[in-house]
């Protein structure tokens, strides 16, 4: 499957991925100047916190969030292997938030759903990789991914 590589030697911590993720994926207006003033505040799905490293969902092979979800809201797309939240059925129990080893699932208090990166599964390329000025984020095909995992 395709994996999103984060190169920590290239990341400058500029927050552009966060900004564009917030605008393109979670805002209503899809335009930066307007998204800035939106209520509720758009929530980016990628995190640059503390270190110069952009962190988003790793779409784990053995995903604890899938195990923890009580009603099958957390799902895996069988074609692409990407894990996503089926928002209409989310009951906001925050089990996935508790079990995620990377801490990238965000409980949205206003919307009452778990918010998580689905690596822009409906778009050609994830927006964070698209806008990264140093190409620290890039999408790569990994044929040996399965082999290594098991």
């Amino acid at each position, binding site marked *: 499957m395709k994996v999103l590589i984060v190169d920590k030697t290239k990341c400058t911590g500029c*927050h552009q991925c*966060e900004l*564009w993720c917030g605008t393109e994926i979670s805002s209503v*207006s899809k*335009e930066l*100047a307007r998204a*800035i003033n939106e209520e509720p505040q758009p929530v980016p799905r990628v995190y640059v916190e503390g270190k110069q490293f952009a962190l988003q969902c790793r779409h784990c092979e053995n995903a604890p969030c899938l195990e923890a979800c009580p009603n099958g809201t957390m799902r895996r797309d069988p074609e692409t292997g990407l894990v996503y939240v089926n928002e209409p059925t989310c009951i906001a129990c925050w089990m996935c938030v508790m079990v995620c080893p990377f801490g990238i699932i965000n409980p949205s208090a206003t919307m009452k759903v778990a918010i998580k990166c689905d690596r822009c599964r409906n778009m050609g390329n994830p927006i964070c990789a698209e806008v990264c000025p140093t190409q620290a984020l890039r999408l790569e095909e990994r044929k040996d991914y399965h082999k290594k995992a098991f």
Partner: protein
Amino acid sequence: MEFIQKKTADHAIEYFLLKAAEEGISLVWDRFEGQLPECGFCETGLSCRDCLQGPCISHPFRDSNKLGVCGKDKDILASQTLLRLVIKGTVASLDQLSDFTKGVESNKIKLKNKGKTDQLLKESKNLFQNGGVAIKKEFAKSMVQRWEENGILPEGIARDIFKASQKLEGGIAGFEENLLWAFKVSILAGMAQKLQGSLKKSVFGNTSPTTMEVNLGILKKETPNLLLYGSLSPVLKQKIAEAAEKKKVNVAGVCTDPYLPPYHFSPVTNYVSQEIPLMTGAVDLIVAGDQFVNPSLSHLANHYETPIIPAGGLNGEKDLEKLAKEIVEQAKKSFDFRRKIPRDIPEVKESAVMAFSPEDLDLKKMTDGLNKGKIKGIAILSGSNNVKFTQDRELATIAQEFLKNDILCISEGEASISLAKYGFLNPSRNDIELGKGLSDLLRSLGKDLPSVLDLGSSKNGGITDFLLNLAKAGKKEPGNYPVLACFAEASRSTEVAEALWMVAMGIPTYFWPSLPVAGSAKTMEALSHLCQEKFGSKLHVLTDKKMEPRIKANLMIKDLTGERGPRLSGHPWK
């Protein structure tokens, strides 16, 4: 991410774009694409690198970093970003004035009007020390009073610029105060430009409308071509023109004041395409000033073996006459050296009547026309080019729409050159559609007037003089007429300062592209409501990047005619 498919409306430039692609030459448009996506924090004014604890941002989507290390919030960050730009832009105008006065004081030039010149030199010193004495009297009393009430009447260049720059260093000034400081600084720029314009008249004599040719076709095949780039000291330009005339060197300009009586420097092209003249291979020497000159020029000049001489340096020649002679001599030598380089000059040029001065125009007829409803309003077209738009398309389309709708267009500086390329400044072009009332008015104003009237370089305060004279002719403040200013493709900080100056004079101003204040709703709001309250006019900053020029024009026409449609400014999120 804004990718511009069509780079320019100018066919001559388009021809060279293909050539550049074939030869693998990188131009301004390629570099712009390399920069995409541009930093969203800087674009919306939410970043700061004024101290070494930073750089800081105010994150619009995270609560953990809404404030900078020192505690600047998004409103302060955005208003300070604007203030920083305005200070930079104002200093550019002041630098021009100081270059000019220095040149005049060197006594190397014959003055047309000695008494007036001395008076103006004294006044420019006054402006430096105490914010000017005589110049303040030239503005309407109510205007000066309004500035004084708001505490933004200049108190001297040194004092105001120092104080304003300290607002960036610390203190507890809120966004409204920062904005007022920006206006205070911009008033200095306006005054300096006005002084420079008067000084130019007293030193070189009155300007009268002059016919010149515009675009790449003015480069000569068999004569050395010397190009002046950017703002240079008028005295140096005069000396270069004198020396060049004797040695038969063709002198033209890019982004420089095209008219300096009795000489003129025909504009070869305008700001964004300033590299293109080099690609003709016909440029033998470039004299480069600072403002409006892109550093990329030197790379490309290397490629075409064109020498570049800086107009001033740390240890540069102080004697301008000697420097001018050396420059012209070198242009001739360079022409001989460069004979092997093929010259590919497109036969594209357009005749244009430029440099009207407000005294040449019967402003009484204009105000009568406005009062009787012959014309719907007056639009001031200003600003250079920006790579974020299709070159010249915005300006030309907006001018076209205005003229059709009986709106008198006044232009200045770089905007005039953009318009001149498409024949708007050519009186013999009759394919430009004019509204009935407007064409009647233009005919009554004088014989052979072009459809758009150019008031000379933006550094000479032609627009300021025009507005003040208009106010005198109609005995009303300029802001009380249906007048607006439009910066359709602005890019430089001088233009930002000028836009604020227009607003301070009470002229509603439209500015594109969006200023880096969009990150702060309060600052955006203040630019319309606070300005309306303080100056009676708004600075309209529109954040929509995909707005078509025709829609922009209609928006402005509605503003002029008083039909208040849905307003985007101030509420970009609604």
